């Protein structure tokens, strides 16, 4: 009885310490008891760690590709791979742990369905995985290589940049590795920290000869991945890992293609152009709503989709104040629309600011649309630090930072 009272008092004191003091609680209680805190104390901690910085916005069900099925992003990837292996008898999938289904379940069921010579594990060696993939592609067969995390793609950098990207050019088109596709999980995931959160697209953007693609949703992922696989150039397909389970929508069961090097205007607007790719598209979509609601500002939201070669024309689409300007454009530059329409551009990505791909977009747009810009181009990006662990909520370019930058642009 006395023991029970003592324990009850302790629990009351612990609860009184408040959410912020949970580290102190654990220390004061002694480690073994700290392990055994009642469930409610842990939940506060878990809650602020679990809340995502975005809300996935599914697109309306596509009707033009036949029957659809509810799929999350990794299932959409599996579906694309399934379609590819069914259609193309030369296609093979390989990488670390792909045989049992992959660490993100993207290849579940494929080995049983297509055989161990077509879906197989490789030794733990990224430079080997990509080099091997290039060799398969040189013979004309389709190679789909998986790098377990984009953070680990760097050992393969030489094979990608010095070999894959230059194969066709340096051989005078005698040889190529166009049937190579490299897939890798990409981007922040809430707890990935330094080596499970990176977005390395900017390193590859500087490399003519490859294509780099990032989808924002399951439907986009399947169509873009199929296009990458069928594209006659080596492609890197980065899959936002935080969306693997969080993003669910209706996705066609049959194969279909979404064109590469074409950005998508997912929401039209007239005051500010917002550009992003992958997970960040959902952040800027929300920012667009906030801007409309709080500031009465109409935003045009663009998903870049392909990082290189990128769709310059769609993004430049609005660098004229008055829509009359559009009439003055000749037919060949009719394409230059978005920024010409709004005069304001905000680009956002998780990757660090300096040398990030927003720099390329910003530079090109100011070259093409200078006189039509109402404000300096804004880049809302990760800080110039490695990707931190506990500081992730402060690091990422969340909706508040984007909103604030947008506000400043409007008031410039």
């Amino acid at each position, binding site marked *: 009885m006395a*023991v*029970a009272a*003592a*324990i009850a008092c302790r629990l009351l004191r612990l609860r009184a310490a408040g959410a912020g003091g949970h580290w102190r609680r654990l220390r004061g209680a002694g480690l*073994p*008891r700290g*392990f*055994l805190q009642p469930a409610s104390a842990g939940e506060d901690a878990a809650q602020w760690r679990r809340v995502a910085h975005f809300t996935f916005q599914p697109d309306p069900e596509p009707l033009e590709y036949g029957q659809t099925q509810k799929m999350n992003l990794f299932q959409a990837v599996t579906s694309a791979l399934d379609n590819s292996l069914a259609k193309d008898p*030369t296609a*093979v999938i390989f990488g670390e742990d792909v045989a049992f289904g992959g660490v993100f379940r993207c290849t579940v069921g494929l080995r049983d369905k297509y055989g161990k*010579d*077509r879906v*197989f594990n*490789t*030794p733990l*060696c990224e*430079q*080997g995985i*990509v*080099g*091997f*993939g*290039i*060799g*398969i*592609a*040189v*013979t*004309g*067969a389709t*190679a789909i290589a998986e790098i377990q995390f984009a953070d680990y793609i760097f*050992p393969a950098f*030489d*094979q990608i940049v*010095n*070999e894959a990207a*230059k*194969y*066709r*050019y*340096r*051989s*005078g*088109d*005698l*040889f*190529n590795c*166009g049937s190579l596709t490299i897939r890798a999980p990409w981007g922040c995931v809430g707890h990935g920290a330094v080596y499970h959160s990176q977005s390395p697209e900017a390193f590859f953007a500087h490399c*003519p*000869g490859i*294509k780099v693609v990032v989808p924002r949703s399951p439907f986009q992922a399947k169509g873009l991945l199929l296009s990458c696989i069928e594209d*006659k*150039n080596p492609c890197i397909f980065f899959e936002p890992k935080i969306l693997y389970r969080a993003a669910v929508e209706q996705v066609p069961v049959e194969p279909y293609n979404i064109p590469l*090097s074409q950005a998508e205007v997912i929401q039209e607007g007239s005051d500010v152009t917002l550009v992003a790719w992958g997970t960040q598209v959902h952040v800027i979509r929300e920012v667009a709503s906030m801007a409309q609601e709080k500031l009465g500002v109409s935003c045009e939201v663009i998903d870049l989709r392909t990082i290189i*070669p*990128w769709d*310059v*024309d769609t993004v430049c689409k609005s660098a004229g104040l008055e829509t009359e300007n559009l009439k003055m454009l000749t037919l060949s530059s009719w394409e230059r629309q978005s920024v010409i329409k709004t005069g304001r551009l905000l680009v956002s990505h998780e990757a660090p600011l300096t040398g990030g791909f927003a720099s390329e977009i910003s530079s090109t747009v100011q070259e093409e649309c200078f006189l039509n810009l109402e404000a300096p181009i804004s880049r809302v990006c990760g800080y110039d630090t490695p990707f931190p662990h506990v500081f992730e909520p402060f690091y990422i370019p969340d909706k508040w930072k984007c909103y604030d930058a947008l506000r400043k642009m409007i008031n410039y």
Partner: protein
Amino acid sequence: MAYCSCGGLGFGGWLYLRIWITFIGTCSTSVLPAASLRSPDLSTGLGTKQHPQRQQQRFSSLDDKPQFPGASAEFIDKLEFIQPNVISGIPIYRVMDRQGQIINPSEDPNLPQEKVLKFYKSMTLLNTMDRILYESQRQGRISFYMTNYGEEGTHVGSAAALDNTDLVFGQYREAGVLMYRDYPLELFMAQCYGNVSDLGKGRQMPVHYGCKERHFVTISSPLATQIPQAVGAAYAAKRANANRVVICYFGEGAASEGDAHAGFNFAATLECPIIFFCRNNGYAISTPTSEQYRGDGIAARGPGYGIMSIRVDGNDVFAVYNATKEARRRAVAENQPFLIEAMTYRIGHHSTSDDSSAYRSVDEVNYWDKQDHPISRLRHYLQSRGWWDDEQEKDWRKQSRKKVMEAFEQAERKPKPNFSLLFSDVYQEMPAQLRKQQESLARHLQTYGEHYPLDHFEK
């Protein structure tokens, strides 16, 4: 469990002990040898009593064998490190002695005269082309060149043992393979000059040959990158049931690269029909083998990966031929990789940018040039068979030199490709942005063309 009723410990204390017990229980299970795990009636955890006799039987150290998934091996109870054997390493297989005499007649491949003459003519034509093109670089006619002096036997012996459709991945010192496959002199020269006839469209430095027709993948400068690529190509050939082998050439220096390790490991684990052919010529530019590795060369690494390996005399064209022939047969039949380390010597400088007298003695070079050269050894063989003589030698030298000079003069006269070929083949299709850049260069040349060497480029 008797402890849970200890009131004095309190709630927290009881849970603490409970976790500790579970931990021990887990530990107990894991320390038991496999033999005892197979007995279904064995209960684990503290406090359980086993029949002493049954326990002793299960724990007998005489019976148990290692169960580790990582290695198939016996236990040993003596502490002993394996001593790497670099004093008397893997022996070097040869067929001819340095005077071109067959040592063991049963190893003589007994190739027909025509074929052996083709070996000889390929090697000597290569040698002649090397001399002329090296000179042409010295005279400023081409920008760069790499000779193959001393290694002609490794190229021709191996190329001859392959099928014409076997895919070749090289490093940069394998021109004899192309020569053996009858790559015309005109195309060698075209690539070195980067003229309109260059299949590579003038994009790469000299000696970066490639030929789709002859299944020779275009050379690239980064070392060893071709190794894992060759493995992938071999895997695809296996899947296609093509009955083709892939051969991958590299030097002993390139074998230090991570890509080499990657390639060997992948080839073995994925069971690829590939021949890894290492030209161990003693130097990687100025770095001698003593600074490149400490083990017994490259052949000794093969078994570490589970790869069938052999070391051969690279200056003995028949030894190279025999080893490659057998490796090819088995690689295709058994879908496994083979590693051939061909010992040889780089008689020439690394390239026209190198002067090797800075790091090795002229005497050393002369020894190999005079006493152990693949061409002279084969010539002695031919002469002893009565298939060649001094008269034919003189004629052939004149003839081959004439052929090379003609091709050379023609190549020099041709223009370079049109400057627009700077922009094509980056992708299969030209991206919009690149087309704009191409147009901008064209416009720039309209105004500033006089400052550019347009006269040497096709219009």
